């Protein structure tokens, strides 16, 4: 029972609340608050929960449970994680790491150099990107329990940036003994040294992580638990953000068409665009250079003069992303501004096609061509439709084909039965790892997805790529990649349109979610929830 006096007291304190609350909130903003459950949405459920054998969607989960040797600030400068000190020899061939002492895995076993050795060995043999990062690795030595030495056959100027938790996760050696790691149960029930312990994985629904009470960073993490929900439908994710059921999501959480409205209408939602370097990518239109018409540079040049990249950015990408002329997104450290730019010029395009020997026939058609948009991003098909309309203007008749993702990959990279594809590619943390595979003539390999699909072959570009891959002087390397970008833009094996817009969408209750270069793929140790 509430007596009258109590009731009026209640009313009094309730009316005073609005005046007190803002001060209380401000005080809380400064002081991380412990407790709470963070709900984190992923667009897809990955095959495994740690990125030990594959660099897919699992990168969004991996680092929360399993840590890496290094972590990075927003400018990609390394910071200690499981390695406390590191040192690279003058010739760039020896990497020494001193490891953190007193760290234990979630199952109680102590963390030692043998775990690092086993992890790097697995990554360098099984992980598709890790194979490239560690291509020059000759041997791994473990002089003591807390020291690791990597010896290389050739310099690898990108290697120090290749070691975040979501690229090279350090797993306990005793769980990954001899044998094929791909079927290992610890891939879906991971054990690591990270701020959160793995509790359960319900396929198609969620992953539950709980605070690691014995985490080596005393006082962290702040959260009690993290729930990672797999929501495959874009509209469903939008709804879950709107109602506050989901607190944070990375990559492309909601369709670009919903994004502006969502931020405007919901003051509790906000965008973070930092922390995307490792996922920076570009959208491209690629030509099959084995097609005899498209092998003619003038034809490709004519097509380049038809494409209005600003229009693509503003209508298909709703104004998000940056118009680009070369193969690197602006976030990539080797991005070079001022590359050749092909202005929209329909007359010039018509002239170039006439000169190339493809006049219009009686129906005004020069030739026919097929376009295959990648059936993954909802922006690739509209881009293909735009391209078809532009091509029609100069008498090139294009047909669009539709297929699912596996069929598309098979058609492009195995059957090579395509003319033009609308595609995207991740630049990743270094051009040698993320971009070389697209333009290096020796990576024209049938059956390997996201290799050199255009069949581009320029010895000068090969030379620049291979030289930059082992160049330890940063200035020379920057120049090599600048020359490479200029050459590719000049040769037009593909046309780059807009950089991929990637962002973290978060509820404003979530604090400290983006503290370094890996962004939402980081370990969440610093995250806390405000009221």
């Amino acid at each position: 029972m509430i007596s009258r006096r109590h009731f009026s007291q209640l009313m009094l304190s309730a009316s005073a609340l609005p005046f007190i609350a803002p001060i209380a909130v401000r005080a809380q903003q400064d002081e991380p608050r412990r407790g709470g459950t963070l709900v984190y949405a992923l667009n897809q459920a990955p095959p495994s929960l740690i990125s030990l054998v594959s660099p897919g969607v699992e990168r969004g989960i991996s680092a929360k449970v399993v840590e890496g040797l290094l972590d990075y600030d927003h400018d990609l400068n390394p910071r200690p994680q499981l390695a406390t000190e590191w040192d690279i020899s003058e010739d760039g061939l020896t990497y020494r790491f001193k490891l953190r002492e007193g760290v234990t895995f979630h199952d109680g076993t102590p963390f030692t150099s043998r775990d690092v050795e086993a992890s790097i060995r697995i990554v360098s043999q099984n992980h598709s990107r890790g194979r490239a990062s560690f291509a020059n690795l000759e041997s791994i030595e473990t002089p003591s329990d807390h020291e690791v030495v990597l010896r290389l056959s050739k310099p690898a100027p990108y290697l120090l940036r290749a070691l975040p938790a979501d690229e090279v996760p350090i797993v306990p050696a005793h769980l990954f003994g001899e044998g094929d790691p791909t079927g290992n149960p610890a891939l879906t029930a991971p054990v690591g040294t990270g701020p959160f312990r793995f509790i359960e994985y319900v396929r198609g629904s969620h992953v539950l992580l709980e605070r690691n009470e014995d985490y080596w960073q005393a006082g962290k993490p702040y959260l009690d638990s993290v729930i990672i929900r797999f929501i495959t439908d874009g509209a469903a994710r939008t709804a879950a953000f709107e109602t506050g059921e989901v607190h944070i999501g990375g990559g492309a959480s909601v369709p670009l068409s919903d994004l502006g409205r969502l931020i405007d209408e919901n003051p509790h939602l906000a965008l973070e665009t930092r922390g995307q370097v490792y996922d920076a990518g570009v959208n491209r239109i690629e030509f099959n250079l084995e097609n005899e018409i498209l092998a003619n540079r003038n034809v490709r040049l004519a097509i380049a003069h038809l494409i209005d990249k600003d229009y693509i950015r503003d209508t298909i990408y709703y104004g998000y992303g940056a118009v680009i002329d070369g193969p690197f997104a602006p976030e990539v450290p080797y991005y070079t501004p001022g590359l050749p730019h092909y202005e929209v010029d329909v007359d010039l395009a018509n002239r170039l096609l006439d000169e190339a020997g493809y006049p219009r026939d009686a129906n005004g058609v020069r030739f026919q061509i097929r376009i295959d948009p990648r059936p993954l991003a909802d922006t690739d098909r509209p881009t293909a439709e735009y391209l078809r309309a532009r091509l029609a203007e100069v008498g090139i008749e294009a047909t669009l084909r539709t297929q699912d993702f596996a069929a598309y990959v098979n058609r492009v990279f195995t059957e090579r039965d395509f003319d033009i594809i609308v595609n995207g590619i991740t630049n990743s943390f270094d051009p040698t790892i993320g971009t070389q595979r697209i333009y290096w003539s020796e990576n024209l390999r049938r059956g390997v997805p996201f290799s050199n699909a255009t069949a581009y072959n320029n010895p000068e570009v090969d030379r620049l790529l291979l030289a930059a891959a082992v160049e330890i002087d940063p200035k020379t390397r920057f120049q090599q990649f600048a020359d490479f970008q200029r050459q590719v833009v000049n040769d037009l094996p593909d046309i780059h349109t807009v950089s991929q817009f990637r962002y973290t969408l978060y509820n404003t209750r979530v604090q400290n979610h983006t503290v370094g270069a890996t962004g939402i793929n980081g370990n969440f140790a610093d995250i806390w929830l405000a009221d």
Partner: protein
Amino acid sequence: MTQSRRIFRSLLRNFLQAIPTIFIIVTLGFFMLQLAPGDAADFMAAEAGSATAETMAQLRSAFGLDLPLLSQLGSYYAGLANFSLGHSLRYGMPVSELIMQRLPGTITLMAAAIVLAVSLGLLAGTVMGMRPGRWPDRILSVLSLLFYSVPAFWIGLMLIVFFSIRLGWLPTGGGYTLGAKLSGLDWFVDRARHLALPALSLALYYVAIYARLVRASVIEAKSQDHVRTAIAKGMGRYRLIRVHILRSALGPITAMVGMHVAGILGGAVVIETVFSWPGMGRLAYEAILSREYTVLLGILIVSALLVIAMNAIFDIVQSLLDPRVAVR
């Protein structure tokens, strides 16, 4: 006693008939997935965003894709003979476990949708049929036409917009509140809240069908002699509907529901995606996209068994409702 013996015999016959059905489904399913270009290794590598020739070879041998086609199918059958549905590399667990995790979700969703569809359909149909041409009949007719013609995913999204975002009454998706350790009534209420919208969006299309079906049956029943006699004798309105009219309307409905089970299972794919409902439909869809035949065939087998079992049950229910329809 003869009744229960007949039921037992009918179940046995259904079971025996299931064996060749499953053989055909497995073989067809296997080869149809082969017809689709691209294989599981292509998908997995492409999904990861990068690959090398070596990792592709590793993936192919892990999936067993480097073996001849017939020996892949042969070893699948060998596993099946040992009651094993094989292993999913993509999900990193045995297919049977994978399906068992999802099966309760699908059955719950299906059962709730069927119950909703039948009860709402009976209610609406009776209201319409008792007074055809009046305004409740008109309004419900328009509504049922709407539900019949609008795709389920759109209805689902609109329900989310209205009940979850605008009103904030129900969750937007998922099977239960994650991380909350509930028990007893709270547990049930939580599940029911999550189930309400997906079950309703799946059911509405069938509500429309059953409502029209019941309406026709009711109108027909009303003009029959025994009903007119009952009215003349002054039988109460509700008793009349319950005993004489609905009973004859239930027959065709039960037959239709039996036929619709497979359709509801198919419709679940879309609903499960919209509501992030952890069921088998989405798993099947993902298995096709990722070309993983062990998962797909496992789901096909389980779904086929489910549909056969449901049909057997509806046969029995029908014979109980109407003794003239004997269990064969």
